[in-house]
């Protein structure tokens, strides 16, 4: 294995890479502001603490305070610079949109581009309806000829896999997209998502110049996809172009508040990030376009030394791929995209925390990479910020615990200088927390950037105030959980790769909430008792935190509920007010599928399995897609025994491993089709008796169970044939 060079490579091409002089000036400006702000805060804290000399605990408090204040300043200045950029009369000279002339926006898109969607046990309907909308949106632009779509499945739930196969076939049939939309299932999901994408690159990467990576919940408009390819063509120095995916489709309060915040505050933060990250931005793993040749040559991920959770396979691969791309001499740029790039978010607080647990471990792994040789300094800062985004929760918790301790061992504040420092620090901190939000809200009130109508601007202002309440209530709870995640990671407790839930199917699960949040409330009770004993004044000071901890359970239920304020037009986003076509198409089709009569729950649970064995066409499809192997992994006797149990006892009697062994063998899948149909009723498990009786009463077509029913597009070949 060769070792990556110890220096960042010279630029491959300059187009798309901000001139070093401008980048240096911008970073010097930004980090000067951040440094000064941090220094001012730390100095005020030191003055306040050091009145009677510094104790160990006070030094510890100050040490925890420094990174926290740095992070606060980073967010503050990013947002303020973003607001300034959005309002300055002269457009940003580095804006990549400006690299295209109006004529170039209309030119044909000739570069071969693969749109890849890695999936893992995702909602099949959402995945394929999303793809349909993107495909149709691209077709409408008239420049779809050079795009191919790849669904890269790592799903390990058998029923899900079969449903994916049949949805793929039906989608291709309906859109007449055979040879344009491809489905690939990996037998062994090595290295999870990044391994999935690498596998694509190894097999088909050379066929395409660009790759657009989507998540299972991504949605992108054809217009934006074309623009991204054109920008990449015009700027050969750009290796990765990351769009700003806006959250859509939320149905819970948490989801709607998050998507509102993204829509309102996101563009300012995005502009601010682009200002100081320049050509060393981050890749967020999806809704981005990648130049494939340098990606294949330079961005394969080696395993980290040691075992999980710190070592092993790199979980948060996107940051590392961005750093490797930059190291190879290509820019990684952000593209401020007000419309056209979308994703979905977790519906409940528990789902959000599950996602954060995974991201936390991934970001903490980057600790190794902080000190590696040859990174561009900005890549190190990106890694550091990623680590801090979770480690800062633990630092905040430590800070509050130390503050509690210091309050229990008070020393009199006698000097006016110390009292003034405390008041100034409080004012400065409040400003750092709330000023960006206030500025953005004011900007919206004045400019109507998000909504033109004055009523909507006013409602947006009110929603902005209300979202502060929601985020304030959640912040201490997130602090406790993120601290726990960081400690778990340090103690070596890794995370499993689990499917993300993106929709709230059956209301809030109270048991899940209680089981997850009772320790937080208990911590709140214990801390309140301690604070009371320390002093009533301290209890009052720390009460905003403690109230949130005590109310963790009702807050989790409240934010995960479906009373979202939509009735009062609160937290409304432009995508909700007037959905873009790509979103409208998808939603219409999802509603059609959702409105259908469902089969019995047991049949729905094993629907894919039922179909592959009963339906002659889906059976044929699955066998056709399976790679025929000379040797099977398990003995024929073992497979015969599983076949017998499947027929006589039903699919619920088999373990996932047994089902997997069976479903991978072409002979078994073919034989079972006939064995099930030819078995007498007394030989069949009740599941199969019901399945056979009800199968033909189900959906209109075997493949359309998970997809909207649309008239198939008729290909030229069929037109000619008929």
């Amino acid at each position, binding site marked *: *294995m*060769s*070792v*990556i060079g110890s220096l960042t490579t010279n630029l491959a091409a300059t187009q798309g890479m901000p001139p070093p002089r401008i980048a240096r000036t911008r970073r010097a400006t930004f980090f000067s502001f951040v440094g000064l702000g941090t220094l001012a805060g730390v100095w005020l804290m030191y003055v306040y603490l050091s009145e009677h000399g510094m104790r*160990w*605990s006070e030094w510890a408090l100050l040490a925890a305070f420094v990174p926290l204040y740095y992070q606060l300043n980073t967010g503050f200045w990013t947002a303020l610079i973003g607001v300034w950029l959005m309002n300055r009369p002269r457009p940003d000279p580095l804006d990549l949109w400006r690299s295209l002339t109006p004529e170039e926006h209309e030119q044909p898109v000739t570069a071969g581009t693969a749109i890849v969607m890695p999936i893992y046990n995702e909602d099949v309907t959402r995945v394929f309806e999303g793809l349909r909308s993107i495909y149709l949106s691209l077709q409408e632009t008239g420049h779809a000829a050079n795009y*191919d779509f790849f669904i890269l499945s790592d799903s390990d739930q058998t029923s899900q896999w079969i449903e994916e196969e049949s949805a793929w*076939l039906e989608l291709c049939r309906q859109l007449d997209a*055979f*040879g344009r939309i*491809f489905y*690939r299932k990996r037998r062994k999901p090595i290295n999870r998502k990044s391994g999935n994408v690498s596998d694509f*690159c*190894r*097999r*088909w*990467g*050379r*066929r395409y110049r660009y790759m657009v990576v989507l998540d299972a919940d991504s949605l992108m408009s054809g217009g934006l996809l074309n623009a991204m390819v054109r920008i990449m063509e015009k700027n050969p120095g750009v290796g990765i172009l990351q769009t700003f995916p806006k959250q859509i489709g939320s149905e819970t309060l948490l989801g709607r508040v998050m998507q509102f915040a993204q829509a309102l505050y996101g563009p300012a933060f995005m502009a601010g990030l682009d200002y100081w990250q320049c050509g060393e931005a981050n890749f967020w793993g999806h809704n981005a376009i990648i130049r494939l040749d340098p990606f*294949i040559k330079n961005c*394969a991920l*080696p395993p*980290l*030394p*040691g075992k999980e959770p710190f070592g092993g396979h790199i979980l948060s691969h996107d940051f590392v791929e961005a750093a490797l791309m930059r190291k190879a001499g290509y820019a990684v740029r952000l593209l401020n995209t007000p419309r056209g790039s979308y994703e979905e978010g977790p519906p409940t607080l528990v789902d959000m925390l599950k996602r954060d647990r995974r991201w936390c471990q991934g970001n903490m792994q980057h*600790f*190794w*990479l902080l*000190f*590696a*040789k040859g990174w561009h300094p900005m890549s190190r800062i990106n890694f550091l910020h990623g680590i801090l985004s979770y480690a800062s929760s633990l630092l905040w918790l430590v800070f509050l615990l130390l503050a509690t301790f210091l309050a229990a*061992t008070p020393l009199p504040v006698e000097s006016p200088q110390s009292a003034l420092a405390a008041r100034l620090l409080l004012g400065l901190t409040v400003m750092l927390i709330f000023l960006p939000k206030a500025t953005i809200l004011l900007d919206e009130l004045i400019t109507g950037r998000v909504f033109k109508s004055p009523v909507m601007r006013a409602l947006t202002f009110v929603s902005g105030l209300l979202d502060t309440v929601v985020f304030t209530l959640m912040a201490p709870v997130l602090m406790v959980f993120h601290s726990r995640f960081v400690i778990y990671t340090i*103690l*070596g407790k890794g995370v499993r790769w689990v499917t993300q839930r993106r929709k709230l199917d059956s209301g809030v699960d109270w048991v899940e909430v209680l089981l997850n949040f009772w320790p937080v409330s208990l911590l709140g009770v214990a801390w309140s008792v301690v604070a009371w004993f320390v002093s009533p004044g301290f209890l009052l000071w720390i009460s905003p935190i403690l109230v949130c901890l005590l109310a963790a359970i009702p807050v989790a239920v409240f934010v995960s509920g479906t009373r979202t304020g939509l009735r009062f037009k609160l937290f409304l986003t432009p995508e909700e007010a007037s959905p873009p076509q790509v979103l409208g198409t998808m939603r219409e089709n999802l509603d059609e599928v959702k409105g259908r009569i469902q089969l019995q729950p047991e049949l729905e649970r094993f629907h894919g399995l039922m179909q592959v064995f*009963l339906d*002659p*066409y889906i059976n*044929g*499809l699955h*066998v*056709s897609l399976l790679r*025929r192997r000379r040797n099977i992994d398990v003995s024929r006797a073992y497979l015969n025994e599983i076949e017998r149990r499947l027929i006589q006892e039903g699919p619920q009697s088999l373990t996932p491993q047994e089902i997997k062994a069976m479903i991978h063998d*072409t002979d078994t899948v*073919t034989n079972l089709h*006939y064995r099930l*149909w*030819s*078995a*007498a*009723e007394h030989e069949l498990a009740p599941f199969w008796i019901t399945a*056979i009786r009800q*199968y*033909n009463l189900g959906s209109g*077509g*075997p493949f359309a169970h998970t997809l909207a029913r649309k008239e*198939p597009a008729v290909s030229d*070949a*069929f037109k000619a*044939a*008929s």
Partner: protein
Amino acid sequence: MEAVNIQFAPATGTEEEWNEAYARLADYFRSYQLHNRIRRTQLILETLRRAAEAHAKNPARTPTEHSIEQARLMLRDWLREIYRDLNLNDAQIEAAGRLGFYLSGGPARWPHFFLDDENLPADMSEAMRAAVRTSGPGMQVSKMTPREIDLGIVSDVAEDTFDTLGRHPMLRYSILILMVGGVLGYLYLLLR
């Protein structure tokens, strides 16, 4: 296929068994999305006729088993005729052929010719053959080899430490207990 004889009098098997076979075949052919009832009935009766002959030779198997077996054989013969020049083995013909019939719109466009190997409309055969020819894009294999990242001396030291701690969970938890104990002890000293 010969004209269907409505009279069906199998030499072996009970009426109940043949009725069960009939019902199963009806469900089976319906799963092919053949919505033309007349054609479906023709197919059922033709299959039952063949099954009755097979059952007379081997009554150990049930009429339902014979019926599905006969349906499979009829399908194989029919598909073999359509795909004879495509160099596919029996298993591939069976799987891909069924799919080809569906993809070509066969159940709706040519229900009368399903399993009829004596009357094969040219457009149906061509459409079915075209449907199985579509496959994925040819692979163009690239090397995407990960290169080791030089993590530097800090990582070496950290790795050794984590490695040691990872191999000795008792040591790991002892250090943790010592740290927590130290903090608590310090707190005690300050608060007493």
